[in-house]
């Protein structure tokens, strides 16, 4: 069992290394060999001595009460150790029905017999084997007092939420919308709908909980390792430092592993109650309930356009689904805040309380759903204005942030439009739909969308230790969700130390390390990377002090002109002929090592003065069978400007992943609730469709140069989420361009097209 990921020295072929500049290299994942050989240990791979297995029974109704559980039958099953129900569940230190700490979600931990959604845990069975626990959970045979399920956005009246997303205001208004609409020569009023979607990480949520007295060790995938120690500790009334979280590898997170969820607490509670380690791993269908999802939305637009094709008003009203007991309102209207210049801007949100699990952040929360609708509506506006969709977007290009009026820290969106359009061949696009066919007679359409995602930073710490042999150790409790974050962070850390990456050992994924912050919001590389780089430069500063004050060093007295660190040596800045190795400096000083520390976080003054976003432009080609309506994306080109790119291979890969998710959003993903029971009827990977390889076309990602001096000292933004934005709209717009049919409900399917596609 590995406590942390420890990437050894010598993992990179020499030909890949360019000394002094690790950042910018297209290195492969440094944990790749561990993963393909099976040596990487994921949470559920841990089997401590005495391990018990927990399986929870899930409610099959969406609303009502559990009236009976056959606990005797479950207990009598061979191998069963304990059955937890609301009647015998030991107490927790917190009330699950009140908000105990920031960013907490109300959770379901057997506090009573109420059922609030289908899939809610209603009992937990702990047994010597997984099979025994599974069968005993089935033997519980619950009966219910069920009330009619409320699912679908029309099931109840909307209310006005106090906040959307994570604490954002529900309404933003600038200028006079009604006046803007009155002044318009063209209007677009359109309603779009997006369904509930589920994270479906390859690795289901899993936890192995082990108690030693009042100390708790957790093997569980987690996107915010150090912060979560405090959250877990609070539920059990112990200090945060008593909790150790080991999360060396995540098989995907997408926002669903950033939040403490009920099943985790139940597993820990069972381990405490029974005095033995307990493992709980969700079954695939259990991932459609207590662990969050992208909430369904309905988005109403009112757009005004003047005679020159410029916006006079943009009004974006989202009605989002949340649970009956907790608020997570998909902040979809906020996607309209920062993209197109308009004298009048209004973004508003309403919400409906449904008998569903609470939604939560899912890759590009708000931005993905909002962009899908906004970019489609903008396409409709371009059509109303009689303009090419790219020309329309350029006419409405925002030179300053539309919502705040602030200047952008950097915005290379024009370059993204230009480079993407050039690569795609956009200039050949006919304005009218249904103009293009391929050699087999299929309808061909081209569409585009603008991509946008905020460039936030959180707070992170890191340490660096330079050793006598000239190698170094760097540490931060970051999280790699599979995208290669640690490789990029390792590159940055090596640059901070002026070492090649193979001379630097990298430790991460353990709560005992310095807090690496949250792997979310596309801010992890910027935040943890800044901390790591600062830790390295702190070491170098101390080393330079030693050398420049030492008469026996060739660098003595260089303090005025300074020294530069490169390839394990310090050089006089004014005379590269005079240098000394790190090891020699340490040896002469009689030191075995030097430690440094660094922090990452945004400069508050910059944050106040400037709007900070990554931008992009996505161009899509789709083909539609004119008779059968079946759709296939045949080309995708995305051009993205996201500040300094640390690792172009991994950044490109992440952008591919986001764009592929965009295909799924546009064409495939939808949780189907039975209208009567409220149960999700396709809670499995066979029927909840995500794109397969045959759905993914030739893809082209262009990394557009962008120098952003304000986001952070390294100029790093993020690429984790922006790939979905823009792509969904681009595909929807291409379908319209191919068929002449505007589908305003996602996912777009052949039933939407078989009438329209052949009507002409």
């Amino acid at each position, binding site marked *: 069992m590995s406590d942390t990921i420890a990437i050894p020295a010598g993992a990179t072929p020499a030909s890949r290394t360019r000394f002094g500049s690790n950042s910018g290299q297209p290195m492969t994942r440094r944990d790749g060999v561990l993963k393909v050989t099976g040596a990487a240990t994921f949470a559920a791979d841990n089997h401590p001595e005495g391990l018990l297995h927990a399986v929870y029974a899930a409610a*099959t109704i969406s609303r009502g009460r559990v009236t009976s559980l056959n606990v005797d039958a479950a207990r009598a*099953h*061979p*191998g069963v150790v304990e059955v937890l129900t609301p009647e015998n569940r030991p107490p927790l230190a917190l009330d699950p029905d009140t908000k105990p700490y920031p960013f907490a979600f109300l959770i379901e931990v057997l506090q009573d017999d109420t059922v609030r959604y289908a899939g809610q845990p209603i009992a937990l069975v702990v047994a010597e*084997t997984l*099979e*025994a626990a*599974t*069968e005993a959970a*089935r033997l519980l045979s619950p009966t219910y007092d069920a009330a009619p399920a409320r699912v679908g956005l029309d099931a109840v009246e909307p209310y006005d939420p106090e906040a959307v997303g994570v604490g954002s205001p529900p309404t933003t208004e600038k200028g006079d919308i009604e006046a803007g609409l009155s002044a318009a020569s063209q209007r677009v009023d359109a309603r779009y709908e997006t369904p509930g979607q589920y994270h479906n990480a390859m690795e289901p949520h899993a936890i192995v909980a082990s108690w030693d007295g009042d100390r708790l060790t957790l093997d569980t995938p987690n996107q915010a390792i150090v912060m979560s120690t405090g959250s877990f500790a609070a539920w059990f009334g112990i200090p945060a430092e008593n909790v150790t979280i080991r999360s060396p590898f995540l098989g995907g997170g997408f926002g669903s592993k950033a939040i403490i969820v009920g099943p985790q607490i139940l597993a820990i509670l069972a381990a405490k109650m029974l005095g033995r380690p307990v493992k709980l791993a969700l079954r695939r269908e259990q991932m459609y309930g207590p662990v969050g999802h992208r909430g369904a939305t309905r988005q109403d637009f009112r757009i005004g356009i003047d005679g020159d094709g410029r916006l006079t008003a943009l009004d974006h009203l989202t009605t989002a689904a949340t649970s009956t007991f907790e608020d997570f309102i998909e902040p979809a209207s906020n996607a309209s805040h920062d993209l197109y210049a308009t004298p009048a801007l209004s973004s508003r949100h309403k919400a409906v309380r449904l008998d569903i699990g609470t939604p939560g952040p899912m890759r590009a929360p708000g931005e993905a759903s909002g962009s899908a609708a906004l970019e489609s509506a903008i396409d409709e506006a371009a059509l109303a204005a009689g303009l090419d969709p790219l020309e329309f977007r350029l006419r409405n290009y925002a030179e300053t942030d539309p919502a705040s009026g602030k200047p952008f820290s950097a915005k290379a969106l024009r370059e993204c439009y230009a480079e993407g359009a050039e690569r795609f061949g956009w200039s050949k696009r006919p304005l009218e739909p249904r103009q293009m066919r391929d050699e*087999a007679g*299929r309808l061909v359409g081209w569409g585009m969308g603008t991509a946008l995602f905020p460039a936030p930073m959180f707070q992170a710490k890191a340490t660096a230790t330079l050793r006598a042999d000239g190698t170094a150790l760097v540490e931060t409790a970051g999280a790699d969700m599979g995208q290669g974050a640690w490789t990029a962070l390792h590159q940055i850390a090596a640059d901070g130390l002026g070492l090649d990456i193979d001379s630097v050992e990298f430790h991460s994924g353990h709560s005992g390390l310095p807090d690496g912050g949250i792997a979310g919001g596309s801010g992890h590389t910027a935040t943890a990377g800044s901390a790591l780089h600062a830790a390295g430069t702190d070491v170098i500063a101390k080393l330079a002090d030693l050398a420049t004050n030492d008469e026996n060093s060739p660098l003595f007295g260089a303090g005025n002109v300074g020294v530069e660190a490169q390839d394990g040596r310090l050089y006089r800045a004014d005379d590269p002929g005079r240098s000394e190795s790190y090891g020699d400096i340490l040896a002469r000083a009689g030191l075995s090592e030097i430690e440094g520390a660094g922090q990452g976080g945004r400069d508050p003054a910059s944050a106040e003065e400037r709007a900070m976003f990554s931008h992009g432009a996505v161009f899509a080609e789709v*083909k539609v*069978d004119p*008779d*059968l*309506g*079946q759709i*296939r994306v045949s080309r995708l080109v995305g051009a993205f400007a996201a500040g300094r790119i640390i690792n172009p291979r991994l950044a490109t890969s992440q952008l591919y992943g986001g764009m592929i998710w965009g295909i799924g959003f546009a*064409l*495939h993903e939808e949780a*189907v*609730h*039975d*209208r*009567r*029971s409220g*149960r999700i*009827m*396709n809670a499995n990977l*066979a*029927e909840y*469709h995500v*794109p*397969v*390889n*045959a*759905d993914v076309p030739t893809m082209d990602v262009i990394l557009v140069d962008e120098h952003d001096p304000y986001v952070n000292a390294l100029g790093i933004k993020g690429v984790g989420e922006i790939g979905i934005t823009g792509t969904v709209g681009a595909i929807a717009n291409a379908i319209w361009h191919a068929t002449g049919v505007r589908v305003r409900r996602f*996912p777009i*399917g*052949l*039933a939407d097209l*078989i*009438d329209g596609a*052949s009507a002409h």
Partner: protein
Amino acid sequence: MNLFDYFRPASLAEAVAAGSQPGSAYLGAGTNLLDLMKGGVLAPSRLVDLTHLPDLNRIEQLADGSTRIGALVKNAALAHDPDFARAYPAVAEALLSGASAQLRNAATVGSNLMQRTRCAYFTDPASACNKRQPGSGCDAIGGENRAHAVLGWSDHCIAVHPSDFCVALTALGALVEIEGPTGRREVAMTDFYLLPGDTPEKETVLEAGEMIVAVRLPPEAAAFAGHQRYLKVRERTSYAFALASAAAALKIENGLIVEARLALGGVATKPWRTQAAEAVLVGATPGKEAFENAAEAAFAEAKPSGENAYKIALGRRVVTRALMMAAAGTPKRMPALPASPFASETGANAHV
């Protein structure tokens, strides 16, 4: 845990003896049965593992010109058998359009015939389903039924038969060889499956203890090799069940259709041969008009079982297209996306 006996017979006789006992289920590769057991849908008390039986994994050319496929032949092995694919290209195409490469490598021919519907109400033990629990009702009716049947359904069941392979076999008049307690018998594919009626739990003519040992394509089936295709329409390009599919086979002489075979998938409660449509085609000139007439005939009896009226229009177009593709001629090579409307090439001239 969920206890069951596991028995690995050494001979057909042993298998049938074990399979005849109440609570037994025959196990092939288990790509469907084991999932259903894990999901609490089925709970056999004994699994009789057929995968180690001798002599059931051969593809044989018989003296009378027919082809016999052993029940344990893997889907992938059959589809990639060059002689088989040349003689029955639509069967190979149907096989390769089903499931995923991994599943095709594991799944067996006999089990493919025995796979259960993917109706979500069947696989969800909390739902009422007359197939799973006779007399409990059908929650698919009035539920989420966009993918359900428009042909052959009853007030007791509207579930679609999921197979692609069986659709092509049905079109070509395949026979099912059955071994059982009373010996061997054979049944035409068209008679093998039962309509749901008021006993949807009874899906085939198999009696207790009976098992499939082989599927046989009759000598006359090979005569369609030059003009046969399988077409499958779905929401994603691969790894999805058909919303509508069709296997079409034509015999064309002197510019006229002299014989036609047509079966539908994804739209009916069993693999659906439509002899009414075949009759329309005989004597007709191959072309869109004749094919649209056949499509009309194929769906003459169709009616929506819920929010799936679009499948009737879609099914007609699938039939028309499949016939167009068959008339154009079997491609020289299997398309890169078998059975897909996005297959790169169609017609005899492709790849030449």
